[in-house]
C-alpha cells in the first residue's frame, strides 16, 4: 500500500546519463533480502562506494543531503532492465519521492507508483530547463498535475489516472482488486466449465 502523495516541494538532483538501469539503481547482490526495508544504502551502491566500502567523495549522491533533494532528475529511459521492485524501494529509502525523466521504463513506472514514488515524464525542453537550475526548488502538485518552479509557467504532466487517484487518496490497490472477486469468480466459472 502506498503513502498518499499530494504536493512535494524540493530541490532536484540530476543524474543525466541515459539508460540508467535497475542494476545501477540497486545491484543484484543486494537482492537476497526478504523485506522491503533499509535498501537506501544499496541505492546506486556502486556509484557511491569503493570496493572497500568507503564513500566515493566525488559521487553526487554522497555530497547532497537527501532530505533536501527529494526529486531525482534522470536521463532518458530511466530504470530500464530488471523488474526488481527493490529499485523503487531503494530510491524511497534513500530519500527520493519523485523521478523526472524524458522516458521511464514501463515496469519501473508501475512498481514506483505502487510504492508512492512518483514517476514523471517531461519533454526534453522542460528537462533541460530543470537541469539548468539545480538549486531552485520545484513543486510537484499531483492534484493539479503540474510542476511549478520560480516564475516559470507551470508545466503539466500526465500520470495514469487510477494510479494517480491511488496516490492522492492512499487507496489500497490490492483491496480494490479484491473488490472484483465476484467478477473474477464468474470469469473462472465461465472458462473452467467449458
Amino acid at each position, binding site marked *: 500500500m502506498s503513502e498518499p502523495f499530494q504536493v512535494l516541494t524540493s530541490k532536484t538532483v540530476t543524474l543525466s546519463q*541515459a539508460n540508467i538501469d535497475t542494476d545501477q539503481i540497486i545491484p543484484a547482490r543486494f537482492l*537476497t533480502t526478504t523485506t522491503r526495508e533499509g535498501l537506501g544504502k544499496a541505492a546506486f551502491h556502486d556509484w557511491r562506494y569503493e570496493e572497500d566500502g568507503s564513500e566515493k567523495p566525488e559521487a553526487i549522491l554522497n555530497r547532497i543531503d537527501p532530505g533536501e533533494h527529494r526529486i531525482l532528475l534522470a536521463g532518458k529511459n530511466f530504470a530500464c532492465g530488471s523488474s*526488481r521492485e527493490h529499485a523503487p524501494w531503494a530510491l524511497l529509502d534513500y530519500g527520493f519521492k519523485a523521478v523526472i525523466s524524458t522516458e521511464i521504463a514501463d515496469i519501473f513506472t508501475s512498481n514506483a507508483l505502487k510504492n508512492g514514488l512518483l514517476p514523471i515524464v517531461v519533454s526534453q525542453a522542460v528537462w533541460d530547463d530543470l537541469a539548468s537550475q539545480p538549486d531552485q526548488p520545484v513543486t510537484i502538485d499531483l492534484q493539479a498535475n503540474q510542476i511549478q518552479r520560480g516564475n516559470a509557467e507551470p508545466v503539466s504532466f500526465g500520470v495514469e489516472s487510477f494510479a494517480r487517484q491511488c496516490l492522492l487518496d492512499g487507496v489500497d490497490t490490492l483491496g480494490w482488486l479484491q473488490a472484483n472477486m465476484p467478477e473474477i469468480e464468474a470469469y473462472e466459472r465461465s472458462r473452467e466449465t467449458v
Partner: protein
Amino acid sequence: MPDPKTLFDKVWDAHVVRTETADTPGVLYIDLHLVHEVTSPQAFSDIEARGLKVRRPDRTYATLDHSTPTLPAGVNGLKPYVTAQAEAQVHTLERNCAAHGVPLAGWDSDDRGVVHVMGPELGLTQPGMTVVCGDSHTATHGAFGALAFGIGTSEVGHVLATQCLLQRKAKAMRVTVTGELQRGVSGKDVALAVIAAIGFGGGTGYVIEYAGDAVRALDMEGRMTLCNMSIEAGARAGMIAPDQTTIDWLRGRKHVPVDYEAATAEWLKLSSDPGAVFDNEVMIDGAAIQPMATWGTTPDAGAPIGSPVPQPQSDSDRKAIAYMGFTAGEATTSQPVDVVFIGSCTNGRLPDLRVAAEVLRGRKVKPGLRMLVVPGSEAVRRDAEAEGLDQVFIAAGAEWRIPGCSMCIAMNGDFVSPGQLAVSTSNRNFEGRQGKDARTILASPATAAATAVAGVLTDPRVYLNEVEHV
C-alpha cells in the same frame, strides 16, 4: 465481419475480467504465475499480513534459481550458498510454498530449473495463456503464443491473492524478419540485431509480435531466445504465433492438456488475422544478419563481430565505450577475453549447449581463460549428460555446473571479477551486471564457445565450417 485482431488482441481479450475505462485499468486474469525466491518473499508477507492465502496454488508454480549455488553440496552435505542471507531467502520460499500449497521444484526435484527454462519444459506454458513472473524475462514464454510479462513484487502479491492484475493494454508492434538465416546465425543473433534496430527503449509501451520466414524457421529454443530479450528493447512482452513447431515441441510434456488434439486445434487459431493493424511495424532482412556481439553497456549496442566500435553519438556512448575499455573505430576482436559464460534463460537450453559443444569438441579452452557452462535446468543437464556434452566441456577445460541463473545476474557467488572481460550468452551487458566493474559482451553460444578457444571474440563460423568439412 468482426475487425481483424492481432495475436495479442486475441489473448488479451480472452482474459479480460473487467474492461478498462478512462478512470480504472482493466482486470486481467492470469493463467500461470511462476515464482522464484528473489521477488516473492515480500509478496507472501503482504498477503499474509492481510490474512489471505494463495488463491489458486494450482495456477502457481515455484522454483529456486537466482540465489542458488551452482556447485554441488560439499562433503559435509552443506550447499555452498554465497551468504547466509541467500540461504535464508531460499528457505523463505520453501516455507512459503509449504504454507500455501504452492508446488515447488526445489532442491530435490528433477524439474528444478531457471524459471523461464522450466516453465515451457514442463508444459506449464501453453499457447494462448497469460503468464506472469516477478522477472522481466518472462517474455520468454511468448514464444508459445502466450502473453507473458514481468511484474514487480507488489503485483506478485496481487496475483497470489486474486489470480488477477490491474492492467492497461499496451500498444502492438510487429517485427518481421524476412528471408533465411545464414549458417552460424542463431536466435540470439536475431535478437541482438532486432534490439540494435529498435533501440534500447524503442519498444517501451509495446507488446512485440515476431513474424516472418526467419522467425518461423527458428526452433522453439531459438524462438524463446528471441522473445526472452524483448525487454531489452523496452517491450514488456514478445509473442510468436503457435504453429506445428510449437505443437510438436510441447507434445508429451508433463502438464499439457490431456486432450492434446483438441487443445492444438484451439492453439492454431492464435495468429494475427490478415489485415490486423499494428501501432508500429519494423522489417528486418534476416538473410543479412551476421553473428552479433555487443560493444557497449546496453543490449542495443550490438554489431556484427569484427565491425569497428562506432564513433560515440552521446555522452552515454562515450561512457559505455570507456567502461568497456574499447576505442571507437577499432574492432573488439583483439582484446583478450577472461571469462566465457554459457547459460541463463536466454541460452541455457539443450541446442545452445549442443552447438557450443560442437565448436569445443576436440579443442581446448585457451589457457588462462575461465569458461563456465551452466545448464538452464535439471532436464537440460540430464539430456546434455546423456549425450556426453558435459564430457566435451570438461575435456576442453570448462567448468560444468548444476542449474541456476549463475553469472547472468551474479548474485549466487558466480561472478566476473572487476575489470575482467566476459563473453556471455546471457541478456544484459549493463555495468556491473555480471559483477562489480565486470565488462560484458553479449553473444550467441556458438560465438561464446569459439571465443573460449581463440581467447578473443571470434566469429563462430570459423570453427563451425571446419566441422562441416571433416
